Structure formats: structure tokens, C-alpha cells
């Protein structure tokens, strides 16, 4: 159907004249995307400003006031040893976000580098091609592993600390980026400008760095936000089974875990509030993820712009 394509293409053309205006319009029309950025910003701010905002120390036990329900004094109540849950909830992004972001970035960097190398050499023969094949099979093995058991085992084997959790998260995420990058690079490898640079005498490494990587990064970048959200969940899960950060580090997952026994007997606040904070933050990241996905997808973007125009017209009519 070439003609319709051409027509819509022409429309996209006119849209492109004011890309920023379009983005703003989209943001106005799809407030949930804006909401995503607001949530994540709020979580970051909460973590950053926690020392100023928190009414109590997040790691100070106050046995005199244990398991107090939410009140004016303790907005979200206190836990079993009298720590203020509100203070802990707002301190937690420091750990949770730091771990998730660090773990995700680490996996993205390592995964993309290996993925680029593997993708670059996948079609080749010889030692490098064979090595590339081996790397892919290793990735298969890692992905066939039950993620959770694998992560716990890593933490258990390396010792319990923030760095270990970051490593574990990075490790289980690497295959995702490896595959994304590999398939991208394999496509780009065949493009003319890559051959041109090779012919021009650039080394493999420089070709990858200068011509292949920048053009292949798109999908990996789009994956990042969703992946951060997922990593927060994994961090919390690890803490829940006791393989995450150490107590009493304010961390949502371990807070949920420590309040777990109390829920059954009716003291819901030690678990429910941190879980809510966790869920809202991950929700924010997935909103950002879906907005990135949308902006990166020309077809969907076009459809959305059209919807918006249609609605505007309806309103005008």
C-alpha cells in the first residue's frame, strides 16, 4: 500500500518540524508519562533530601516506641524495634535506586561491550567466531538458570554487601544487553559505512567504537528504564530472603520482610508502606520505560499524534 504510506509519511514530515512541541503535546495528552518522571524524580529527591526531611534516624532503634501504628508522631508508624518507618521509607531510595541503577548500568556497559564484540565477530570464522559462539552458549546457560536462585547463590558466595548485590543484579542482566547489542551489531556490521571504515584502514576495535556502537545503542538504551524497575524488584526480593543488604540498612525489601510476621497478626504498617513505596517507584520506571518505547517507535508515535489531532479536532467541533 505505498500510497497511504506516502501520505502518512508526509504527515510525519510536517510533525517533525516541531519535535519538541510534539513531545510537549504528547506529555500533556498522556499525563501518565509525565507522572513516571515525576515519581522517579520524587524518589531520587526523597533519597537525596532524606537527611533533611526524615524526622528520625533511619537506623536508630527506639525500643520504647515499638510497633506504634501511624500517628502524628510517626507518620507511617514504627517497626518491631521502634524505628520510624517514614524515615526508613524515604531513606531507602538511596540504597534501592543506587543498587538498581548501578547494577543495570554495569550490566548494560558490560553486556553491550561483549555483545558488540560478539555481534561483530559472529559471522566470522576462526578463533574469534568460535569464541563468539562460546560466549553466546554461556549466555544461554546463564539465562536457563532460575534467576532468583542464581542471584542468591552469587550473593551467598561473594558475601553479603551492597557491592555484591549490585554484582548479582548486573550478572543476571548481562545476557539481555548482550543479545540486544549482538543482534543490532550483526545488522549494522553489514552496512556500507562500516565496510567503508574498514577499507579506510581503521582497526576492528576502532570501527566498533566509532561506527558500530553509536548506531546500535538505541534498543539497549530503551531497555534501561524498564530494567532499573525490574532490578529494584530483584533487590527487594533478595533482601526478602535475607540475601540482600544487611539489616538495618533502610531498604524496602528487607523492611517488608521484617514486618512479614506482623502482618498476619494485624500490624500491617511495617510491611505495607515500604511495599507501596517500592511499587510506586517501579511503576514510575515502567512508565518512563513505556514512554521511551513510544518515542522510539515511529509507528506508535505516529498513531498517537494522529489520535491527538483527532481529539483536538473533535474538541474544536
Amino acid at each position, binding site marked *: *500500500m*505505498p*500510497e*497511504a504510506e*506516502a*501520505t*502518512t509519511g*508526509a*504527515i510525519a514530515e*510536517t*510533525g517533525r*518540524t*516541531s519535535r519538541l*512541541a*510534539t513531545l510537549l*503535546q504528547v506529555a500533556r495528552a498522556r499525563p501518565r508519562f509525565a507522572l513516571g518522571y515525576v515519581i522517579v524524580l520524587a524518589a531520587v529527591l526523597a533519597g537525596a533530601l532524606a537527611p533533611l526531611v526524615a524526622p528520625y534516624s533511619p537506623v536508630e532503634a527506639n525500643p520504647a516506641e515499638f510497633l506504634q501504628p501511624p500517628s502524628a508522631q510517626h507518620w507511617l508508624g514504627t517497626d518491631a524495634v521502634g524505628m520510624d518507618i517514614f524515615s526508613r521509607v524515604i531513606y531507602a531510595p538511596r540504597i534501592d535506586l543506587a543498587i538498581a541503577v548501578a547494577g543495570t548500568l554495569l550490566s548494560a556497559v558490560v553486556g553491550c561491550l561483549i555483545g558488540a564484540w560478539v555481534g561483530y565477530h559472529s559471522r566470522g570464522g576462526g578463533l574469534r567466531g568460535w569464541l563468539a559462539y562460546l560466549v553466546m552458549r554461556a549466555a544461554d546457560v546463564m539465562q536457563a538458570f532460575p534467576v532468583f536462585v542464581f542471584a542468591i547463590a552469587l550473593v551467598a558466595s561473594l558475601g553479603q554487601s551492597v557491592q555484591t548485590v549490585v554484582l548479582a543484579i548486573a550478572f543476571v542482566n548481562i545476557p539481555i544487553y548482550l543479545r540486544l547489542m549482538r543482534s543490532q551489531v550483526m545488522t549494522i556490521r553489514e552496512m556500507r559505512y562500516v565496510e567503508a571504515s574498514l577499507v579506510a584502514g581503521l582497526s576492528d576495535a576502532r570501527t566498533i567504537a566509532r561506527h558500530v556502537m553509536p548506531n546500535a545503542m538505541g534498543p539497549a538504551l530503551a531497555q534501561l528504564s524498564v530494567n532499573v524497575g525490574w532490578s529494584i524488584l530483584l533487590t527487594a526480593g533478595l533482601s526478602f530472603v535475607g540475601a540482600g543488604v544487611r539489616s538495618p540498612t533502610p531498604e524496602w525489601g528487607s523492611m517488608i520482610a521484617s514486618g512479614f510476621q506482623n502482618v498476619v497478626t494485624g500490624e500491617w504498617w511495617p510491611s505495607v508502606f515500604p511495599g507501596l513505596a517500592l511499587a510506586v517507584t517501579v511503576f514510575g520506571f515502567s512508565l518512563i520505560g513505556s514512554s521511551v518505547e513510544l518515542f522510539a517507535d515511529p509507528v506508535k508515535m505516529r*498513531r498517537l*499524534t*494522529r489520535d*491527538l*489531532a*483527532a481529539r483536538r*479536532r473533535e474538541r474544536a467541533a
Partner: protein
Amino acid sequence: MLNSAATDVSAANGGTEATAAGPPMLAVRGLTVEFAAMAGAAVTAVRDFDLTIQPGEIFGLVGESGAGKTTLARALLRLPPEPGRIAAGEIRLAGRNLMELNETEMQRLRGRDLSMIVPNPRAELNPLLTVGEQIATMTRVHLRVPSREARRMALDMLRAVQIPDPERRMGAFPHEMSGGMAQRIVIAIALICSPKFIVSDDATSGLDVTVQAQILELLRRLVLDRGSAMLFITRDIGITAHFCDRVAVMYDGEVMELAAREDFFFRPRHPYTVMLMAAFSHNQRLRRMWSRPEALPGAAEPAGACRYVARCPLAQDRCRAEHPALRELALGHFARCHFPVRP
């Protein structure tokens, strides 16, 4: 376009076959299809379009890529390509105003009374269903015949479109068919309910020349046998010369010239038509120029000008200042030009 011109044309148009009894099979008045844009004004793909087609008639519509042919074809079924929308106009099928029907009535009508033959049929057929099923579904849904009867009818239809070994082909999947074979299936689907009117959109574009000829012949016979009428849309002006009763040429959403076949080919009046024929009949290189994207009609033309002015070798000041109306230059021969070419 001025209102007076529109009525003018329709009267003359209908007059071509003044002897025919009853309403025309298809009558389109002032059909306008717009595409919304995020920024700026909407783009009009089909503008104020008029068309009348009589029973038994095969009407050819020629145009380059981007002229609005497909938009028009789909708009006739009230399904313009997204995000287009019918902004104005009236479509009458055998006297019935389609614009007044609700969506359910429209759905019953499509494929039953008004069907469409699509290009690139291998992508258009559902890959997971056998072609037999896809043909039989049409009669089951539209004519409410029982499955067995539907199968029998489908088999007959496969024979009618001259598919070899039709019993076996009933169970075949689209990916197992050649392009020509798939095109026949799509024709079978379009014709099995004996519709009143058929819109064929570039139906033969992807086929070898020999297959193309066979299919056109087949199509012509089937349409005439069933007393239907057809709008045959194509980029290939040559096909229309053999195949259509009347021919029109379309440019940027408008009819530029419309005439009976002989008039059209022997006495073209519009510079665009002349250019098309020249390009077609001369050499390959010029033919390729046809669908060059640079040649796309610009949406940026001033509203008051002739849409063709930018490419017209004969353009004069008036062409830039005044949008020409479609005028009847001879009996049944219309052209939209201030300075038509002398025959």
C-alpha cells in the same frame, strides 16, 4: 472547486449513458478525504471527488503513487487508510447512500455488495487459514449458507478463477501459493458473493505480464457475467487501454481528465495525460520517473492554483492564480485545465 462546476460535471457524466435505466451502480459526489496532522492544517488526499459508474461498466482510474488512488478506493468502502477521514461527500451504491448507513450495515455490505480486490495478496491473506476457508468464510458470513454449501461454492469459485487442481488448493495455505495464484484467490474472495460493485486497487501490479493478461481477462469476464461494475485503479496506463470502458487520470486527489477509452487515448486534452502517455510509450528510463518520490505533488501548493502547475510545461500565470474546474470539452470528455491541449 466551484459548486457550479461540480453539478455541471455530474450532469454531463450521467449523460454518457443516458439510455441506461435506473440509478447508476456507483455515484460519488464531492468526496473529500483528509489526513489530520499534528501541526498545521490537515492534508487533503482526495478532494471534492465526483464519479459515476453504470452497471456493466469497467472504469479505469490511472495515477501516480501518491495521487490518492488507494485512499479513494478505500474511502469508497468508508474505510480510508488511517488516519484519514471522510470529511465531506456522498457515496451511493445502486442508489443507496452509504454515508447514511451505520457501521454494522456497512460491514454487511462490504464484501457482499461492494467488494475490493487488493494488491500484494500474499500479505493480505491470513497466513494461518487455508485459502478454501478464507473463501468459504465470505459466503458463510455474507450469504449465511451452511459450511458445506460454502465449501462447495468456494470450490466452484476456485474453478471459476481457473486455479488448477482446485480440490487440493482448497487446503493450501497462502505461503504455498505463487503471486498469480494468490491474486486469483483474492479475486475469488471479492467475487464469490456476486457483489454489485468491485473496486480493484492495483490488482495486477506485482504480476508477470502474461499472468497479468490472463487475470485481467478473467476479471473482465467475471464482472460482466455477474452484471456488476468495477472501478479499476492502476498505475499502468497501458492496461486501461485494453480493459476499461472509460478512463480517468488522477493527480493529487483530483480527476484531471476523464473520457471514454477511445477519446482518452486518441484525443488526450490535459498536459498531464499527454505527459503520462509519452512517458509510458517511450523508454524505460522515463517510465521509472513515474514513481520518483521527488515527483510527489506538494502539499505546499497555493490553495488557489492548479495542482499540476509546478510540473506543467505549459503553465501560465492564470494557472498559478486560479484553480481550474473540470470542464466538458467534448461529449463525455472532461479535463481540468485552463489551456487544454488541442486534439
